[in-house]
């Protein structure tokens, strides 16, 4: 049994079907990346795991089904999420943003806060700053930090590098790797930046128009034409 099993998932936003029979398996302690062009359904996949869309099919973590549970229950079951647009609380301080993340994991606050500050020292320096005044890179750090505050065993990160400068991208990559190595979290990221995904993840799923077009290890897919096809059509 894999840590996370997604089977034949179809997801809908109102009338539009965004995913068609998507199946993804993740082993405990893995980092995998879902890659594909804009609109391929990457964010929808993560939103669906979090219970934010209407779905058919099955999503199981450690054998337990997540389908039909509310987001709050999924979070307290051990799934952390850093969404693409961050969805931070703009007029709250960095510290308060992190503390909201601790809503269901109140006994771990001190330990988690120490971890977050160790991963992103900048968040400790600026803990009283409102997130609405922060740069994109800082917001990404708050978003990841808030996800960590939920004590996740599975961490979902949507487009960790979008809009970020290359230097910040590598900082984020280092942090994500540490979260897996030191905290033992299993990580699923989505990336439009396929090259970044290949440096971070062990395995890739290529998504195109809501369908899994290819999957495999980074080495298997590096020169696979199906990867570039997903972006350019041929």
């Amino acid at each position, binding site marked *: 049994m894999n840590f996370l099993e997604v089977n034949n998932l179809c997801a809908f936003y109102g009338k539009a079907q965004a995913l068609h029979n998507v199946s993804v398996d993740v082993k405990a302690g893995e980092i995998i990346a879902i890659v594909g062009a804009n609109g391929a359904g990457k964010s929808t996949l993560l939103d669906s795991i*979090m219970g*934010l869309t209407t779905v058919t099919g099955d999503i199981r973590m450690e054998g337990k089904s997540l389908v039909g549970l*509310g*987001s*709050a229950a999924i*979070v*307290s079951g051990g799934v952390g*999420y850093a*969404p693409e647009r*961050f*969805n*931070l*609380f*703009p*007029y*709250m301080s960095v510290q*308060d943003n992190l*503390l*909201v*993340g*601790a*809503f*269901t*994991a*109140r006994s771990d606050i001190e330990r988690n806060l120490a971890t977050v500050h160790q991963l992103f020292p900048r968040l400790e320096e600026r803990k009283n700053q409102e997130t609405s005044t922060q740069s994109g890179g800082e917001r990404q750090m708050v978003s990841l930090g*808030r*996800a960590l*505050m*939920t004590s996740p065993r599975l961490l979902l990160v949507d487009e960790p590098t979008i809009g970020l400068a290359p230097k910040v991208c590598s900082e984020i990559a280092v942090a994500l790797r540490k979260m897996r190595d030191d905290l033992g979290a299993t990580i699923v990221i989505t990336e439009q930046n396929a090259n970044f995904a290949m440096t971070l993840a062990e395995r890739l799923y290529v998504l195109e128009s809501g369908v899994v077009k290819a999957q495999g290890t980074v080495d298997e897919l590096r020169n696979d034409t199906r990867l570039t096809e997903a972006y350019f059509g041929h």
Partner: protein
Amino acid sequence: MQIIIQGLLLSGLYALIAMGFTLIFSVGRVLNLAYGAYLLIGGYVYFTISQTLGVPKLIGLLLAAVVGCLVGLLKYRLLVKPLKGDHVAVEISTLILAVVLQAGVVFLYGDSSKILLPIVPGVTQVAGASVTYNLLTATIASWAILIGLYFFVRKTHVGRAMQAVSMDTKGAAISGVDPDKINMFTWGLSGALGATAGVFFASYTQLSPSMWVAPLIISVAVVIVGGIGSIIGTLIVAHIVGFMEVLAVSVIAPELRGVFTMLLIIGVLVIRPQGLFGREEL
């Protein structure tokens, strides 16, 4: 001097009145036009329990808050939630509900207005102005509640969750906060606050079935002018409205007490729809 003291006292009361309305507008993004009815219910519950039955005043106040809270919870479950974010439908149905509740009060207590005895009797002189202990108590209680609320919202998990839901519902949900439960809680809290304010408001003016309209208008003004749901903004604007009213009454004409409040609502909405302190915080 008299104006300043009167203004301060009245504004404190107005801040308390507007607070519950602000909470709902901020967390639930809903205009609860039946908000004034909490004040109505609070006033009459207190009247029945403490003035008619002679139960100690503090218990009467507490029970008024409990009933207000229950009405708030019921309103959320039976009205607001089934209408799921259809703002116009919520506004219209809460307006109808307010009329229903008003008629309910007429049914039980009759049409004529009643005098609510002062919660704390007596008068004192402050810098040449005569101040009733009653209004003074109301103002002190209102400040105490507001300060308590401020720290509750800032420093507790539930309070922060309320802020979170008001700023980004999806962000709150993926942090493990159930927005529905927070909404529920906020409606209950809003009801309790409104009912408490109602007791003080009724003892300041009088108890009558139509006493809900003026506080509703004040709340609307405070929320609109202050921008969406800020506690500090509410406090500031409650003072603007309160002082304008005191000034209008004492300097121009008592009949014009509400005119400037209306003009303020219209002016701000047309010129700066996001409010004077327009940012979305709690």
